[in-house]
């Protein structure tokens, strides 16, 4: 259902032989959602999947397989069919156009409020690059955050949008951050790097939680605010942090029902019914899961940070200037999951100041401290394993069921690193971003092990999946 004025021209597309109307430029998955189509792909394990929770969302477009329906913009006449996770194109079609090398004093990875704050603090003093894999603004933009909308987006240094950083590599006095921009490979060198890579949305484990019609909070926000398409007409909101989206739902006049904890969803092509643990059944066509925000620890750990646990989340260990070493700083929700985007912004400014100070400039980062507010504190949370069907509840979008994770634990493997390898959890597309916390919870629940005693896997390059043809 469309809920506002659309950008772009109205175009005709075909999906599985059926003519539909959509808008040019919007992602395929959004255009199809607006037409009530939620089931787009089939997983490796043969499960029906949509585009908005976990796992990739491949479709076939004009005979080309494995097109990313979350990113590929719609154009006139597109002929779209459902895709499979294991599809690939036999014709080599991915070629790099060029390699460039750029030198800066400071590189900031992540263009959300923290990255923007850091860039504004630094770019007037030293050459700065701000790298963002999508568009500037991050979560603040898709939440239409008032504070964020009040700051002007100038004095950011050189901005590289739609540019995906591959990792942090140490090269003596310089740090190399290679990045992919379209079909171009850019090797960024700098003296200091700020990782402002933000947080990831918490997911939940319940029966059929991989079904089309289930939304991660950030996917739902994007659909609503960027594309003016509603997740559904009968929305269930669940999880411990409804406040991350309830304001937007109200603002756009979208009715929803808050169910703190979902036990099961059912449906043919996607969600039709939702069950809670009290025996209530709700008719619904969309479930939005909003269960906390967690620092995305992968970029920090890839860069060499150690991981600690407290207040319900894992975070990178940093010193009093938010450094993990002499070269790399962590700013914003990549370090602690801030409640307000304002806090992330000022934390970014503060870290920017620390960097300037370390580079020999006069700066006082502490002056921003009073604007940096609270971060989320939760308990670890638990998964009601005794009440769930273990074959139908998914810990991870790569077809890893609750059963697959519980098996090694029950066999006596209490090392997270081993459980990971035996169950294949945290080894797929998301690199553990949406599933690792569930394993931490399960291991704690079943063995009492303190998360700080767990051997947490480090992020490995590339930080986000990129195609071999761009690097080769």
């Amino acid at each position, binding site marked *: 259902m469309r809920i506002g004025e659309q950008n772009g021209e109205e175009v005709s597309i075909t999906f599985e032989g059926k003519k539909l109307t959509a808008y040019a430029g919007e992602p395929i998955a959004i255009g199809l959602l607006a037409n009530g189509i939620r089931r787009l792909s089939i997983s490796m394990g043969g499960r029906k999947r949509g585009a908005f929770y976990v796992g990739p969302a491949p479709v076939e477009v004009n005979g080309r397989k494995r097109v990313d329906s979350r990113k590929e913009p719609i154009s006139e006449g597109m002929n779209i069919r459902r895709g499979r996770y294991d599809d690939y194109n036999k014709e080599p079609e991915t070629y790099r156009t060029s390699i460039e090398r750029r030198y800066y004093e400071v590189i900031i990875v992540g263009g959300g409020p923290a990255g923007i704050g850091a860039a504004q603090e630094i770019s007037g003093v030293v050459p700065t690059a701000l790298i963002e894999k999508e568009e500037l603004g991050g979560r603040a933009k898709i939440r239409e955050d008032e504070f964020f909308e009040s700051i002007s987006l100038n004095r950011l240094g050189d901005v590289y949008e739609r540019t995906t950083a591959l990792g942090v590599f140490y090269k003596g006095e310089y740090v190399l951050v290679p990045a992919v921009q379209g079909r171009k490979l850019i090797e960024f060198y700098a003296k200091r790097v700020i990782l402002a890579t933000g947080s990831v949305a918490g997911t939940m484990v319940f029966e059929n939680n991989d079904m089309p019609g289930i939304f991660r909070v950030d996917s739902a926000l994007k659909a609503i605010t960027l594309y003016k398409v509603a997740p559904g007409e009968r929305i269930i909101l669940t999880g411990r942090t409804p406040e991350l989206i309830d304001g937007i739902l109200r603002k756009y006049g979208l009715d929803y029902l808050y169910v703190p904890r979902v036990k099961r969803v059912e449906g043919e092509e996607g969600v039709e019914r939702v069950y809670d643990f009290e025996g209530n059944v709700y008719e619904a066509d969309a479930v939005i899961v909003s269960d906390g925000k967690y620092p995305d620890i992968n970029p920090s750990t890839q860069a060499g940070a150690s991981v600690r646990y407290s207040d319900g989340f894992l975070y990178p260990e940093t010193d009093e200037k938010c450094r993990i070493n002499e070269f790399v700083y962590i700013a914003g929700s990549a370090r602690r999951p801030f409640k307000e985007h304002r806090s992330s912004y000022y934390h970014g400014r503060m870290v920017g100041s620390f960097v300037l100070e370390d580079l020999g400039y006069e700066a006082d980062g502490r002056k921003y401290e009073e604007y940096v507010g609270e971060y989320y504190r939760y308990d670890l949370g638990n998964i009601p394993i005794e009440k769930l069907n273990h074959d139908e509840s998914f810990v991870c979008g790569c077809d890893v069921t609750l059963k697959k994770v519980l098996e090694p634990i029950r066999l006596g493997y209490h090392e997270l690193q081993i459980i990971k390898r035996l169950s294949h959890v945290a080894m797929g597309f998301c690199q553990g971003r949406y599933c690792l916390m569930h394993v931490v919870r399960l291991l704690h629940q079943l063995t009492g092990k303190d998360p700080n005693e767990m051997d947490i896997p480090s992020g*490995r390059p590339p930080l986000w*999946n990129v*195609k*071999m043809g761009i690097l*080769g």
Partner: protein
Amino acid sequence: MKADIVVIGGGIVGVLIAHELARRGEDVLIVEKRYLGSGSTFRCGTGIRQQFTDEANVRMMKRAVELRKKYHEAYGFPFKQSGYLFLWYTEEEVEYIKKAVKLQNSLGVPTRLISPDEAKEIVPLLDVSEVIAATRNPTDAKASPFYALASFAKAAREMGARIMEYTEVIGIKRKGSSIDKVITTRGEISTGIVVNATNARAKLINAMAGVPIEIPIEPYKHQSVITQPIKGGTINPMVISLRYHHAYLTQTAHGGVIGGVGVEEGPTYDLTPTYEFLRAVSEAFTKIIPALRNLRILRIRAGFYAKTPDSNPAIGRIKEIDEFYIAAGFSGHGFMMAPSVAEAVADIITKGSTSLPIDRYDPYRFERGELRSKALQMGRNSFY
């Protein structure tokens, strides 16, 4: 704490040695610094090859395949004899490899020299435009290091072996020429027999025990890549192309393409994945199979090749110490060789000798200056 035999190192070699000793009724304890498999086993390329160019290695690998097959049937871990496929690009290479094929055939390994077209039938996505011949042994194999190690560890435990993880050995106490105690971060273990199965860290353990000879095992960083999963059966064999950065690649049971190239760094204990590898592996793989251009890389990771000067391991008893054994320096072949190594080491501990050809791996050969011909190894700079 007490144990008759302490195996230091919980990788595939240590676990299989303990498994074999426990099977023979020995009281054995594994001490592992981190978690089982954390050194190199869990980062290995999954391949099990018998196509070597010397008799001992062919025989050891052949026995390893037989044993692994037997235990795959008993324990159920994934193991698939999908072959190795070597691609050759020059007449010189083909002449050299013909001799190796003859040797392999004479030892019962059914390797065949095949045409580029036959190679393409086996892996249709291959670019064979520069390939002039290929060698294929259909009985070479691949196995999941995770499930294999876990299955053997479980069976070893059931037979009475004990395993201590997150326990680092920090000293070895001797009484004269005899082993007295192994000192760890979690207490002392009284024992009379130590097996050094630490591969990349073998030198450190040798030093702790006062091994009086020089066994030059050095750690080198080798990396591997894993891509998004694609349809199962797309790349069945392990494909080897020495021309393109000594590349090896195949598909895992989960569907991802896994493999590596010979970008070697070291000696070093650093296992940080590098950008240079990311580039080199992408370059080589997309030459061998152009369609891999379209695949997304999920991650790269690094493990050790614990190398000796002739790329053959050091396996045997150190005579001057009562009793100290070494099985280390596998130079990238530990995962494939482990079952027969375990049998040989258990033989010499329990019976004093073995019928397996481990003379080639004599730990004293370095001192005596009797280096062996190089084992055919991926990730060297030259092939001959």
